[in-house]
């Protein structure tokens, strides 16, 4: 467990600003979901928006660390779209 925490600290420490930005965007996502609870259209827009924020984060992060590669880009895009579609399915869209 301690080793895992050290690995996480090292990873977060390698790009603290970028990870902080991702966490803040996540908190904003949850806050807006709570504020607009029950409004399907807004929920759908928030889910799509957060997925795009996440994909953009991946591009910027890997671009800055000079590890931008098609494989990495596809990973973020596929994961982002997969869970976007799963939530849209749940919302009945």
């Amino acid at each position: 467990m301690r080793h895992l925490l050290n690995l996480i600290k090292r990873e977060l420490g390698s790009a603290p600003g970028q990870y902080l930005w991702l966490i803040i965007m996540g908190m904003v996502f949850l806050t807006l979901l709570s504020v607009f609870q029950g409004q399907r259209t807004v929920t759908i827009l928030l889910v799509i928006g957060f997925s795009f924020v996440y994909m953009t984060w991946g591009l910027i992060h890997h671009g800055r660390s000079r590890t931008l590669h098609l494989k990495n880009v596809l990973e973020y895009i596929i994961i982002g779209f997969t869970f976007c579609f799963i939530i849209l399915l749940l919302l009945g869209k």
Partner: protein
Amino acid sequence: MNQLKKWLAHFFLPGETNNFQAKTLHLDFLSVYLAIALILVSFAKTNLPAFNQVLGVATDISITRLTELTNAERQQHQLAPLTYNERLAEAARGKAQDMFAKNYWSHYAPDGTTPWDFILAAHYQYEYAGENLAKNFMFSQGVIDAWMNSPTHRENMLRPQYTEMGMAVMNGMLNGEETTLVVQMFGRPTTATTVVSSQSPEQSQPVVLAKHTTAAAPGNFLSFDLIIAFIVLLMTVLIADFYIAGKLKIVRLNGKNLAHFLFLGFVLAGLLLFITQGSISHYAAFIKPN
């Protein structure tokens, strides 16, 4: 047993056989997840009930379940359970249809129609009557919890004067978006009324069932629990993969597991906390004799 261990290690842990990344995180597997999600979304848009029944998502907004949960709450508070009344159900359906037709979300219609007008139109003469409204919930328990957490709605649900209840669950367009409405009508008939023999929710047939009224049936491919389990499994694999790759100091070209983990964590939190919850009216409606 060894074969099983090797198989599990190949799919869930980085090692020599999977190019030092869990197979479930490889691009080909991720593409399969996306393809399945796309197929399910495409089928959900079809009007083929057979496909929707098998490939639809199972949630449990249903009149039967809502009635059970309401009476369970009443029993917990030492109150008599409410009998399901078809005339009140008809009033609830009338109210839901009116809300969709006139595009309003309120106990009182823009033209002044009250909930009591619908009850009287269904030929139910009441001594006491009440109405609770909810929209866009995915689960019946969420509706009941929201009503119980609201003082006026809770008062309605636990009012000892009520003896009967009727419900409607309907899908339609409200304020430009697809909405699932729940209307709950309470009543106590006047002593002079010939009370319609009350039917259980199973015997009465609502005119329109909400898309999500299908309770989790064995035939449904996808359940909410399955989606949650899939997200949790993927998060576990990501952390395990991250840990082992870090420990073995494996250098590889792939996305950041921690970022994926955070994204899925926020998606999971959103799903569990907010997306399954809808909204209820600001207050409950109640009428009593002067």
